[in-house]
């Protein structure tokens, strides 16, 4: 069976989500190349910026009931170092690698994409939804007009597969329509939900970050379903997948593929288990996926 997100063909509908499998340098400690090829349809890199980013000071994490608040702040070595030091080993895995990009302005995004064109990289996910940076990130998601300019600009110089990763908050539908109009190839729905937690009372330490994990799955399932009914672009779901059942439900409401994020943190081999569970569900209920979307 092959899976399609528009023109992109995948061996399975499971994608490793940005920022939840490190920079990829240790993935082979936990999964064999065969397991990766057989279970994972595509890999999405950590959010990459033009210059290296040190990330936010601690605390960066807080567990909440059935969820995780993170405020990593896009720690990454920068696009150049990533291409040189980390990408070659990922490319050798022969699974499509999609570059998750973070820019603080339209101009920065365009520079990043030019790098990728030169390196003949065929997949990009524009991160306009990170809640943990002061510039760029989620600020884009407030303005459908800015998103339109951004996606249009990238589209003009990038011939590969272009995904935009939306925030689950703000004018989501308007932003989605703007991406469609600017000729994006697909949307990822969605990034984490802006959230806050109290880490300690004395001294008072709080964390403001993004909520992920099973706590958000019903919310993102609803959002995916709503957007699919109104926007004719392939949708990649991302939010709270822990099991094959979670993936199947996203497919059932019409998602073309599904990202696995926080589950990789709980167990680096989660995606293998999820794939096994999904295969069984597809055998039993796969016919439901051809019947349109509830």
């Amino acid at each position, binding site marked *: 069976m092959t899976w399609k997100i528009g023109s992109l063909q995948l061996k399975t509908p499971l994608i490793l989500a940005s920022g939840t499998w490190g920079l990829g340098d240790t993935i082979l400690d936990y999964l064999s190349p065969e397991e990766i090829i057989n279970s994972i349809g595509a890999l999405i890199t950590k959010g990459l910026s033009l210059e290296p980013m040190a990330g936010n000071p601690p605390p960066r994490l807080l*567990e909440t009931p059935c969820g995780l608040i993170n405020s990593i702040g896009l720690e990454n070595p920068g696009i150049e170092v990533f291409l040189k030091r980390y990408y070659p080993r990922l490319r050798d895995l022969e699974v499509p690698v999609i570059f998750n990009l973070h820019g603080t302005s339209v101009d920065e995004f365009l520079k990043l994409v030019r790098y990728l064109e030169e390196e003949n990289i065929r997949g990009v996910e524009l991160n306009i939804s990170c809640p943990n940076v002061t510039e760029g990130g989620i600020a884009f998601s407030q303005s459908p007009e800015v998103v339109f300019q951004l996606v249009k600009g990238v589209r003009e110089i990038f011939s590969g597969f272009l995904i935009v990763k939306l925030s689950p908050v703000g004018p989501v539908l308007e932003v989605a329509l703007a991406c469609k109009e600017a000729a994006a190839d697909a949307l990822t729905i969605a990034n984490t939900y802006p959230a806050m937690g109290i880490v300690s009372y004395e001294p008072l330490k709080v964390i403001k970050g993004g909520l992920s994990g099973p706590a958000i799955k019903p919310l993102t399932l609803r959002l995916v379903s709503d957007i699919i009914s109104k926007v004719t672009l392939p949708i990649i779901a991302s939010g709270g997948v822990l099991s094959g059942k979670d993936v199947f439900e996203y497919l059932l409401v019409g998602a073309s593929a599904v990202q696995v994020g926080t589950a990789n943190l709980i167990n680096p081999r989660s995606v293998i288990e999820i794939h096994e569970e999904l295969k069984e569900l597809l055998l039993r209920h796969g016919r439901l996926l051809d019947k349109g979307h509830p």
Partner: protein
Amino acid sequence: MKSTRILENRALAERIYLLTLQIDEDLMNKLSPGHFVKIKLPDQRLDPLFPRPYTIHSLIGGHLQVLYQIVGKGTRALSQLTAGTDLEILVPLGRPFPRDLGYPLALVAGGVGVAGFGFLLESLPQEKRKETILYYGASSKESLVRLDYWETFGVTLKLATEDGSAGYKGFVTDLLQSDLSERKFKSILACGPMPMLKRIKEIAANSTIKTYLSMESFMACGTGFCKGCVVPRKGGGYFHICEDGPTFLADDIIL
């Protein structure tokens, strides 16, 4: 993750437990002192969502032992499991204790921070154990656990309790500091609560003793995947406690 079975899960003090897990020889050969293990609770529970990290305490008798203290929901749930329960573990994680420890060596432990020193002492030859002093502090006598076990190594054991119910009355760091003038330690290796580690870093800053601190933080992954478990690095940027540590040269980190 690997499957394992609980052989014993025994209370040693009011909130301190010793967990014994069955492991195979293959896995045992991969483990070094200072490594840690992530333990997943056995059912499909979503809360707590993340398996908790624990230092490997001992490998005696071909079993993996963990010494842990109940501090929240994950450790409480672990304490309620009984022998025969199957669990999943991810191990080895982190980097082992440094190999360049000098002797005489001071091991400094606060509370269950003592855990990792068991496996370390088990691996040391007799002559190095004789040159090791274990400073072990806790709130009271009841919380100083496994004293018989520590004594089997022939190390010098120096105890401190905050309430004075055993050993020196006060902090283990004061005990260490008062010894520094007469004992010429080459290395210090410390594990315990943050205030203790900060104090040791201060003490060591005025000396030439090679000082290592074993750090803790909440961990989502333990594998370097999330980049969440950071400690500021001298000279800028951050270390990730799970993949670059958990043990660091005191000089390299900012507490």
